[in-house]
């Protein structure tokens, strides 16, 4: 989820605050396929990922691609917030505000290793995330298109000068950034009861993760996500749940005061 968000910012300088509601949209798509067509949650990704890719392309073409000028990043917050409100309203109308949860045999089941129970959904979700991140890595570092993305990440003007169609790269990147929310949404929906308003909690956490990891850094998003969840859980159990989130934010403040660009952010690229 955070990977998509940071990819979008890295390439397009767009802060997509609709990422939270897009995750929920992905969860609802999995829910609809599961409940109405009996399609397994993971198998359903074959439909939901392309669907959200198309949604991303359409949103970028209709709204975000039209944003120009120095205020583009700031304007993108307003535009994507408006998009998120529209999607939230539509989801409330279609699915109501009653929380739902995704069900499959592996959602609530677990197995035991050395006296500890490991949930199947956590294992499957981890494998899926590893595959997706691996796929993203291969695309970014082993393909010609990936080279275009990295060039655009580093310097859009220079990329355009050497013949890269930055607009096309941006559109596809936005599509990819939105498409991955289908997978994130499915796992989120299988591990949490959700409704459209769950997006507010999600987007605040996603933004914090990419700020800590460094805006535009995929590896940073991954590390910051792991750090956030681990720190909160350890503090919650060892100390007190009251301190779990506060401790994470203290770490965030500490990191940002030492490295304002985040753990892996490249300050020079953003200044330029």
């Amino acid at each position: 989820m955070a990977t998509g968000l940071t990819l979008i910012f890295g390439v397009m300088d767009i802060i997509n605050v609709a990422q939270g509601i897009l995750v929920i949209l992905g969860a609802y798509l999995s829910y609809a396929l599961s409940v109405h067509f009996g399609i397994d949650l993971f198998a359903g990704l074959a439909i939901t990922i392309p669907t959200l890719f198309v949604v991303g392309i359409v949103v970028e073409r209709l709204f975000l691609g039209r944003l120009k000028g120095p205020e583009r990043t700031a304007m993108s917050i307003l535009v994507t917030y408006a998009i998120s409100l529209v999607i939230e309203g539509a989801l409330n109308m279609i699915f109501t505000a009653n929380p739902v949860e995704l069900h499959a045999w592996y959602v609530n089941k677990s197995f035991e290793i050395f006296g500890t129970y490991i949930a199947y959904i956590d294992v499957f979700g981890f494998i899926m995330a590893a595959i997706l991140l691996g796929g993203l890595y291969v695309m970014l570092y082993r393909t010609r298109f990936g080279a275009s993305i990295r060039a655009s990440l580093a310097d859009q003007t220079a990329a355009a000068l050497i013949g890269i169609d930055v607009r096309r790269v941006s559109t596809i990147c936005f599509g990819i950034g939105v498409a991955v929310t289908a997978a994130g949404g499915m796992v989120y929906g299988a591990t949490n009861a959700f409704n459209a308003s769950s997006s507010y909690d999600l987007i605040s956490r996603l933004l914090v993760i990419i700020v800590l990891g460094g805006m535009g850094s995929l590896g940073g998003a991954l590390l910051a996500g792991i750090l956030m969840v681990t720190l909160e859980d350890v503090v919650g159990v060892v100390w007190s749940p009251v301190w779990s989130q506060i401790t994470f934010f203290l770490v965030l403040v500490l990191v940002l005061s030492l490295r304002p660009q985040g753990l892996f952010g490249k300050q020079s690229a953003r200044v330029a």
Partner: protein
Amino acid sequence: MLMMTTTSGASSSGSLAKGAPVSIGISLSLSGDFSADGLAYQQGYKLWAADLNKAGGLLGHKVNLIIKSDASSATQVVTNYKTLISVNHVSLTFGPFSTLLTLPSAQTVNRYGYAMVEGAGGGPSVFSAGLSNVFDVTLPVSYDLAPFAHWLTSLPNSKRPTTIAYATSNDPFTQPVVQEAQKLIGKKLKTVYNNVFPAELTDFTSIADAVAASHAQVVVLGSVDVPTVSAFMQAFEQAHYTPKAFVATAGPDQGKSFITAVGAGNANGMMVPNSWYGGSTNPQSVKMVAEYIKLYGGTAAGVNADIAEAYSVGQVMAQAVTATGGFNNAKIIKYLHSGKTLSSVQGAVKFNSLGENLAQTAYTFQWQGSKFVEVNPVTDKGAVKVLFPKPAWG
């Protein structure tokens, strides 16, 4: 200009032109954390207004509900009531959802001399604020778990669980309920886990795992919504841990919404306190439930308790307006403090000097199969036997 065009001429003193509709201002959480409850409240208020208008309205005036969304925000709810009173010039105000939002709302409307009749602001913070204009038609939440605590501690030694875990959100509604239960249960059960978590928390896995690791035989969860309860249930199942009794302050009372989220099999044995349920034999309640099912479908067990709370708010205000012969809020406040016993779909309503309704009884309800039944107080004629110990998950 805007002010002029939206003004209806009403105020807290309540004069209305003959035949003019009476506007009632309400702020509800139509999005955000409380949206599931906010939307259910909206259904309840609208159902009451529709019924009343069919019967001729309030003192001959059709009721017009002006509902603004507060997005579950304690600052937006204040803005909404200010707008409803000073711009929309509503004659009456009804409460929002949750103790968290009711307190600032009641304080706001109090400055304008308005009464705030509400159904979901039962936390002690509302009644200890020194307000004379707030009236909660529902039993104060502090009493919610009393029947459960009494049942648990009065079990014979051979059957009584020995350990208990308390986990609660630091919400002004849940924390007092759980604290009161702790007081009532005392040392009759050994507390093996006791923690408060922030209301903003969204990942409950570590807390639920810690509760499971404590192997407590009873779990008391201070929850405000279905997702919180669902997260604990899922983590418990994954940890192969089934407490003998599991009661949550809110969530299992959400009817169909709860069952959809957790699955009917998992709901079996889950308990929740409340002062109303869809199977209530109160004739007013039976009528309201039938109307609700006609409009929205489903079964009596699936009707959200929020519907009844909202409907009761309307009923109580209507009785006060009828008794005082107008929409003068000062007179309405005085009347509601007079000690008169009023009626509602939730049962009797009689306010004390703080605006608490102590005329109702607290019940504990339990999901038994697909049925949502009353199990406590055990002496109540409508109570069925508690499903104890709770069946395994699934």
